């Protein structure tokens, strides 16, 4: 029953787009790609990948808990991710980039504990609900292909809100990221910025998890921005590149998965990883060609 790929890509694309579920998936994927690319760019710069991963994993107890309590699943996602963000309260892997990149023990231990206690709770909720693991797989690994119209709309609203917040706080966030001491001295609300960003990250993660699944959000949140940062240090250009990369990864992933029996998640993560590798390679060779003075 798997559609076969024909030599004509336009025909393939048209065939793909006749199905509403594919259109929904593409729209959802696009929104999620842009959101993840922008928020992820900051997350990578702020060295908060561990926090990001933990937040994404919170989707699991969120959904399981919602199912147990009879609440809508999406509500569970947002509540769990938001709650975890509050718990982690701005615990960062390193306090500002102006200090050794090694994770500070106490903060990462908090993040790790939040993650596993959350997962343990999720498992408990599942067991209490006598749920089967099959549902868990969708939770953890996502399904682009079961997206409804309503979900797409909700995603759009969340994305616009999150992106608006990030856009308005761009420069203070950047200063606080690179140099929290100076930011504090200049009167910026450092603690609020930290918490605010974590909440935006939680929002982005909760939104993205519904499509990519809790475990694979990472692919979109880390790889495209990381690749972009390999290629340029300019914030503006970096953000644009990050978005472009994320879109490419999602569209290609969805497109290829349509014609294959293998799950979308695999293609998205593989393309994302390939992109990152390519960017690193490019950066390494560009550096070698340019000599000691690198771009």
């Amino acid at each position, binding site marked *: 029953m798997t559609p076969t790929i024909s030599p004509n890509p336009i025909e393939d694309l048209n065939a793909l787009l006749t199905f509403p579920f594919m259109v929904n998936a593409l729209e959802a994927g696009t929104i999620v790609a842009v959101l993840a690319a922008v928020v992820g760019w900051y997350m990578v*710069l702020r060295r908060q990948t561990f926090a990001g991963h933990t937040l994404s994993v919170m989707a699991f107890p969120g959904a399981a808990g919602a199912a147990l309590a009879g609440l809508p699943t999406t509500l569970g996602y947002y509540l769990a991710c938001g709650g975890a963000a509050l718990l982690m309260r701005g615990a960062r892997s*390193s*306090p*500002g*980039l*102006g*200090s*050794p*990149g090694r994770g*500070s*023990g*106490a*903060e990462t231990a908090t993040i790790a504990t939040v993650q596993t206690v959350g997962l343990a709770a999720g498992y408990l909720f599942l067991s209490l609900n006598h749920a089967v693991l099959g549902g868990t797989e969708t939770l953890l690994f996502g399904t682009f292909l079961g997206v409804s119209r309503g979900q797409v709309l909700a995603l759009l609203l969340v994305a616009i809100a999150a992106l608006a917040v990030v*856009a*308005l*706080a*761009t*420069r*203070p966030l*950047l*200063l606080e990221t*690179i*140099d929290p*001491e*100076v*930011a*504090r*001295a*200049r*009167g*910026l609300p450092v603690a609020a910025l930290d918490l605010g960003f974590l909440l935006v990250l939680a929002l982005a993660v909760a939104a993205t998890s519904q499509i990519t699944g809790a475990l694979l959000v990472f692919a979109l949140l880390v790889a495209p921005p990381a690749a972009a*940062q*390999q290629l340029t*240090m*300019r*914030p*503006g250009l970096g953000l644009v590149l990050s978005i472009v990369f994320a879109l490419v990864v999602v569209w290609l992933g969805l497109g290829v998965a349509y014609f294959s029996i293998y799950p979308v998640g695999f293609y998205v993560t593989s393309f994302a990883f390939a992109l990152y590798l390519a960017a690193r390679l490019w950066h390494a060779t560009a550096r070698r060609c340019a000599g000691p*003075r*690198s771009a």
Partner: protein
Amino acid sequence: MTTTEPSTTEATTAAELTNASVRLGGKRVFSDVGLTVGRGQFVAVLGPNGAGKSTLMRAILGLLPLESGEVTVLGRPPAQARAAIGYLPQRHAFDSSTRIRGIDLVRLGIDGTRWGVPVALTGAARERRRAESGRVGEVIETVGATGYAHRAIGELSGGEQQRLLIAQALVRSPQLLILDEPLDSLDLPNQASVAALLRRICSSEGVSVLLVAHDANPLLGYLDHVIYMAGGRATSGSVDEVITSAKLSELYGTPIEVLRTADGRLVVVGQPEAPHYHGARHEHDHPHDHDHVHD
């Protein structure tokens, strides 16, 4: 470029503390400290580690309240003079994988606190942006960093990073520059050149410079006067007046000897082991950053 109110330019002193004492975490850090930085002067605050020098800086910046005494900056309370102060906090070197250019870092010195979407829409906004870019270039040239301002800041040497950070502090044309241990992680040649740079900035830009150091030697010949802090008290005067065996012994309360080497360097001998004090600077650090491993 900056809007400095008339009162700050008319003030006779850049910074003044009278009978100041600060209490942190239940402990009194220092008491009855007086300090005057005249307009266009180059002043250093010296003393052993843990004497409260950083705490003093933060009090001048208005980041800490005084338990008693008065502090004014440019004739006004510190919070009101904030726009006219350039601050360089003490920090570790930037992590080597930090992907931000020096020029962006300096730029953030101007607009890092500006909320709102970073897009110049009106003609006036574009004009301002152009003027700011000009100022950024100007100040980078003043510190001599033009050659490497476009490279990733993580790849630069300690001296180069420090120059860019000084540029960041200077970019808004402050009237008072406060630097916390700007020389401590630099090698001797860099210490000498950064000290000379600061003196040049002081004279040519008319900026008052107040810095914290634990070694006066790189600064000899540049300083207008010094404040020496030890044992919770301070004494001030010229280098020759303060860094003497008599003065320091009185300050510490134990016999101190000041020796002069053949090449004119000063060596302070006999300082008691400084108390290991967790001052304000450390309150965000992980507890383990300072603990020693005792076998």
